[in-house]
């Protein structure tokens, strides 16, 4: 493990450190809104902090809190949140190959395998930079996420989230996370379909169920890649 001044002098790692800390700070702001939202949805300060420390995957935490806040059952809150948490397992399939170490180290690495650490790691070219980016980003996000949650939970009763538009901070943050995933045609179709399923079901199903059902949109991944689709597209012209 390098010492921090060595990392700071390394021309490859310095931008990674800078980006990780910036990202961490942004996530911290997001975490403040999570803390405020969780407390106003009826969680205690201890429960709110325990969620960020132990669950540590933002979208699932927001989802659980928003389902409970809207009057949904714990089962539907848990179901939707776990479907969202499943993606970290998918990231693990990729990161498990790139982050070597002892069993204990890998148990810690698994906990910080989330959107940000995975995205930052896979963006690096050589394996050493990938490992550094994973640990620095995961660590920075963990610290800022938990500090922000604590601040938000403590301020929770003093801040009216509606007045400051914090209820819109959740979907706005998701928009920013969604954007890079829309680069592929298949990604755009899955996003459109997921959103459509969710909107269509909201008036007719229990809170939390629309999010679960939106996961059916991943079935657009069943056909083989686009290069293999081309003959079929010629047979059935648009």
């Amino acid at each position: 493990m390098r010492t921090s001044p060595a990392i700071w002098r390394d021309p490859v790692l310095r931008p990674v450190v800078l980006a990780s800390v910036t990202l961490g700070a942004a996530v911290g702001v997001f975490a403040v809104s999570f803390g405020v939202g969780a407390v106003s949805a009826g969680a205690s300060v201890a429960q709110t902090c325990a969620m960020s420390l132990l669950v540590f995957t933002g979208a699932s935490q927001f989802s659980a809190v928003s389902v409970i806040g809207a009057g949904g059952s714990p089962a539907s809150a848990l179901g939707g949140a776990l479907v969202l948490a499943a993606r970290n397992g998918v990231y693990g399939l990729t990161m498990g190959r790139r982050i070597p170490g002892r069993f204990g180290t890998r148990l810690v690495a698994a906990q910080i395998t989330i959107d940000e650490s995975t995205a930052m790691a896979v963006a690096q070219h050589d394996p050493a930079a990938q490992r550094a980016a994973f640990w620095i980003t995961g660590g920075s996000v963990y610290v800022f996420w938990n500090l922000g949650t604590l601040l938000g939970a403590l301020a929770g009763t003093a801040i009216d989230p509606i007045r400051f538009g914090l209820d819109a901070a959740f979907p706005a943050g998701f928009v920013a996370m969604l954007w890079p995933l829309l680069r592929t045609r298949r990604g755009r179709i899955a996003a459109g379909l997921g959103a459509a399923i969710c909107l269509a079901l909201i008036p007719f199903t229990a809170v939390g169920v629309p999010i679960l059902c939106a996961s059916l949109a991943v079935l657009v991944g069943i056909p083989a890649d686009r290069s293999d689709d081309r003959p079929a597209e010629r047979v059935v012209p648009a």
Partner: protein
Amino acid sequence: MSWGLVLALAGGAYAFKVLGFIVFGGRTLPPVVERCLALIPVALIAALVVKDTFSVGQHLQLDARAAGVGCAVLAAWRRAPLIVVIVVGAGVTAAVRALS
């Protein structure tokens, strides 16, 4: 909010991470399964965006959030950093509420 829910969510979320990273990490799944799993984030995050923008409980509702999130989409499209997108979304929503 119950402690049972907090702990069940913590256990379940960590189980997925360990399952992917340690149990299956390095193994290859059938390509069709990998293609579908890779689409989980994009499908679910898009669903969360429309739910949090256009609904209150089981009711669809068009209000200040639509303006805020609309501006957040513009900010993301202009490649603004995460923090700017969040501040724009919350700020515009708060401003529209204050004015209406």
